[in-house]
């Protein structure tokens, strides 16, 4: 790749002024191709994921009518019941209550950090929230199973929502998942709000608006697309969470949105089935891929929506 020797000028009598390449530079072209392959690996990975899911899923749907899968309400594959709704509803149970917790907490934190906090305070508190994002989910699941749920159980108000929870509790998982998601919402929303030009705020302040009004009526609408993107991303993350629901929400499918009850999430089902002793290739085993395909489709839709909102946000400000 190095050019042939060019000797220090004084030694050369006549200058060569040739403009053609001194060497064909195959190395450069090879490197570009190699790097392109590295980038193309991402497409390969996505394709592989789709194939990994689709193949067995197609086998599955050959044996189980899709009407049964999507509409029936009993999930007991070893006994021949293939209605996926309990898993979906169970997952939704956790995700719903997680967002009910995470959205106000996340947005409130974001508004505080972006509009109210003095910069010294912000410098300390923002990284602290990010720490929350870095805690491994097993640790949060452990916290949920052995601190949070027992706490809730011990202090449960009578038979509210059907009585105190047992060992597993969808709502407990929801709180943990929500806590895990708070940094996603707060960080991205705060970024979105900080990107709103200062001029908009200052104009409003100059007209006599209070901080609250500026935050809620000026900054929030301006950053809305970014905020929605963060929430959608949070939902996507919550949908895909495995360890927390495994440890806290339980492993019994149930068609309920009641946070007190035990449910089984799609991710938990996948985890349990893959590590269980069902023979590969059977329709019971292929349920893993069918549920996985459904999960992948759901998160994919969420991600595309989120990307769309981020783009919309960027369009106005960049």
């Amino acid at each position, binding site marked *: 790749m190095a050019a042939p020797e060019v000797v*220090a*000028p004084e030694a050369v009598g006549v200058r060569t*002024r040739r403009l053609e390449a001194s060497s064909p*530079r195959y190395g450069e072209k090879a490197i570009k191709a190699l790097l392109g392959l590295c980038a193309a690996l991402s497409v390969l990975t996505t394709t592989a994921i789709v194939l990994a899911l689709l193949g067995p899923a197609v086998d599955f749907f050959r044996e189980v009518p899709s009407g049964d899968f999507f509409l029936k309400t009993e999930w007991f594959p070893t006994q021949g019941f293939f209605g996926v709704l309990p898993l979906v509803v169970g997952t939704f149970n956790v995700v719903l209550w997680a967002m009910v917790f995470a959205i106000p907490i996340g947005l409130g934190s974001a508004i505080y950090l972006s509009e109210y906090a003095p910069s010294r305070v912000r410098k300390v508190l923002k990284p602290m929230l990010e720490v929350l994002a870095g805690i491994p989910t097993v640790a949060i699941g452990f916290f949920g199973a052995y601190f949070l749920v027992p706490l809730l159980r011990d202090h449960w108000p009578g038979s509210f929502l059907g009585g105190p929870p047992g060992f597993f509790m969808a709502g407990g998982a929801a709180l943990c998942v929500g806590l895990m998601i708070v940094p996603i919402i707060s960080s991205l929303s705060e970024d979105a709000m900080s990107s709103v030009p200062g001029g908009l705020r200052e104009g409003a302040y100059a007209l006599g608006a209070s901080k609250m009004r500026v935050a809620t009526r000026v900054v929030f609408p301006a950053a809305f697309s970014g905020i929605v993107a963060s929430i959608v991303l949070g939902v996507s993350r919550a949908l895909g969470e495995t360890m927390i629901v495994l440890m806290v929400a339980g492993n019994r499918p149930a068609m309920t949105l009641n946070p007190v009850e035990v449910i089984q999430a799609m991710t938990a089902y996948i985890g349990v089935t893959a590590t269980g002793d069902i023979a590969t290739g059977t329709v019971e085993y292929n349920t893993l891929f069918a549920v996985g395909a459904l999960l992948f489709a759901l998160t994919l839709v969420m991600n595309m929506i989120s990307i769309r909102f981020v783009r919309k946000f960027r369009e106005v400000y960049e």
Partner: protein
Amino acid sequence: MVGISVSNDTATDEGQRAMEDSADSGEPEIVAARHPAIKVHTEVRQPETTEDHDEKTFELRNVSVSYGGTVAVRGVSMDIFHKDITALIGPSGCGKTTVIRCLNRMNDLIPTARVEGELLYYGQDIYGPKVDPVQVRKLIGMVFQKPNPFPKSIYDNIAFGPRAIGIKGNMDEIVERALRRAALWDEVKDRLGENAYGMSGGQQQRLCIARCIAVDPDVILMDEPCSALDPISTARIEDLMQELKELYSIVIVTHNMQQAARTADRTAFFTVVSDEDTGSRTGALVEYDRTDRIFSNPSDERTENYVTGRFG
């Protein structure tokens, strides 16, 4: 001398009168070029060369550059001479930077750029099919408007080029020689290991000149090298250019016409031509001559307006 091809506006009365005027005077093509009603595609009159700088480093023939369909500069024809300092002056948007970036194929870096016309370097077509832009840039170096030293030590800034290109030889000597030629050696010889960002703006720019010299080019292109510097640093670099002229041909773009008047052997004046129909603005070469003539006795009225400060 040169031929002129005159386009159709001689049909108008004005044009007719202008042609008669020009025929009367001794310099028909120049007078014709002066009149706005006549669109003239002339090759600019080549000045007589009284020194031995008569080898042509660059020959431009009807060079036009467009960026994605919009023509930035059109129809530039001029010869740049060996070991001259050639200045390109004119108001902003007239294409001088675009033209200079063609000379070392830096416009290749802009995907939508298209260069038409002929551009010869010592007789070779710079844009020929077998030409390697990397090789071109080894021979034709560039110093940019804002000093852009690398985030390395002073020594490594200079040594980077020779090392990367494969120049063998005593690197210490190469670095010292480059720094001496850039009039920077005495100031930095004791701190070659320091980060280049610690230097002042003027020193950084001289470092960039030294860096450019270290790969032993033929030509140094300078794109408004002093516009980000204070007057004292500017003066030092102008002095430096006179020294560098002994070894390198220099082409300098400057928006400061006094700088051109002070330093350049030949000066090319560009302007912006507005097309009334389309509203598009295109750069064009108006006049190219020895500097003393451009400034004291320009042939084109537009040149005269610019150099006397009436506009631009």
